[in-house]
């Protein structure tokens, strides 16, 4: 995985200045970091083999000019590994520079191109530093899912292990990320505060390692694994909603250096088992609620 190439795929929309900016950003990025390879979206779309192979085996930066998100669509069709997505209108807002009306970029827009490409290169450097956790965040997952009334629950099929307290662990070599499941974030509803433990703390399996609070309740994260806490997801302090939006990805809580995962695993469930367990639990609760409501309304 480490020797994978990094490629950049812009949308190349030529009919709007947004598209022109996207294209220029891609060109600027490869100028600033020559290790990155450019993929031409037009040639890719014609089914050219070299690009097809390249896109499958590399990590991808996507630059989309507008909400049509052509670059994203091209990439997602090919099941590629996306590590960064840039949407020019977002960037335009971020840097407070409006896209110009003309298709040749004015000075301000050239500056915008420069600012965005700097940001991409910078983010990429950060990514290289903490490769492990970032790539975990962005990997595409395959889910079991079930819809109950209007609520939708997902469980990743592989790679994750679960305890009966509805928390997950995902290991890679000696390290692992820990978080809560879709079921638990649904039960909590909109999470407003996340309390994270101290880095460096040694924990045992089933210790509580953090709590989260919605306007409804306070719940705990009960660690499926044992080891030392080597990182916490600081983003959750400003964005606790990540836990609701992406509980298996951006909403991770802590990173562990594992002590004895093989032993821990004996008491955990894999994806298919947890999915069954979760379905049972939801059904039981639903029936229970049904009864409560009926009793109240006789």
């Amino acid at each position: 995985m480490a020797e994978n190439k990094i490629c950049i795929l812009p949308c190349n929309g030529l009919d709007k200045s947004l598209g022109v900016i996207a294209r220029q950003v891609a060109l600027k990025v490869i100028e600033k970091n020559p290790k990155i390879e450019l993929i031409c979206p037009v040639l890719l779309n014609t089914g050219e083999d070299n690009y097809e192979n390249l896109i499958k085996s590399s990590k991808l930066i996507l630059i989309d000019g507008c909400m049509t998100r052509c670059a994203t669509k091209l990439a997602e069709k090919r099941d590629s590994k996306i590590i960064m997505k840039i949407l020019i209108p977002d960037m335009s807002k971020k840097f407070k520079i409006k896209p110009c009306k003309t298709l040749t970029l004015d000075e301000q827009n050239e500056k915008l191109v420069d600012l965005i490409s700097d940001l991409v290169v910078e983010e990429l450097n950060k990514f290289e530093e903490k490769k492990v956790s970032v790539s975990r965040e962005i990997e595409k997952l395959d889910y079991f899912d079930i819809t109950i009334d209007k609520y939708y629950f997902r469980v990743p099929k592989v790679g994750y292990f679960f305890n009966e307290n509805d928390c997950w662990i995902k290991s890679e070599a000696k390290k692992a990320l820990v978080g809560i499941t879709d079921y638990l974030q649904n039960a909590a509803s909109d999470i407003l505060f996340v309390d994270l433990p101290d880095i460096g703390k040694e924990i045992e399996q089933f210790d509580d390692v953090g709590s989260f609070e919605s306007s409804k309740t306070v719940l705990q994260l009960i660690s499926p694994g044992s080891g030392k806490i080597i990182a916490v997801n600081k983003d959750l302090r400003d964005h606790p909603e990540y836990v609701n939006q992406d509980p298996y990805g951006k909403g991770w809580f802590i990173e562990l250096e594992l002590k004895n995962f093989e032993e821990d695993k004996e008491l955990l469930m894999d994806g298919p088992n947890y999915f069954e367990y979760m379905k049972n639990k939801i059904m039981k609760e639903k029936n229970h609620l049904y009864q409560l409501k009926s009793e109240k309304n006789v």
Partner: protein
Amino acid sequence: MSQNYDADKETFMSVPRKKIPWWPTIDYNKCNFCMECNKFCPHNVFAKTNDEKKKLIIQNPYNCVVFCRACAKTCAPDALSFPDKREITNLIKKLRAET
């Protein structure tokens, strides 16, 4: 929980729930009967009584979610305690091995 909840059939990690002694213990020397824990717990582990000395009791111990200690966080006088987690984990392992 409601009346048709059948604690006998409940399991935790494939072990009958009734074989796992996990629930909070109330220290009546500390408890000020503020009832925050009772309000908090969605599983009706606690119950109020008319006994002046024990206005709060553990009514449904086996409703308690094994390893959950969330109610203790709501307890200002720190009157709730739980069994040793490691002992419980070892017990669960032992019971699982037996079946």
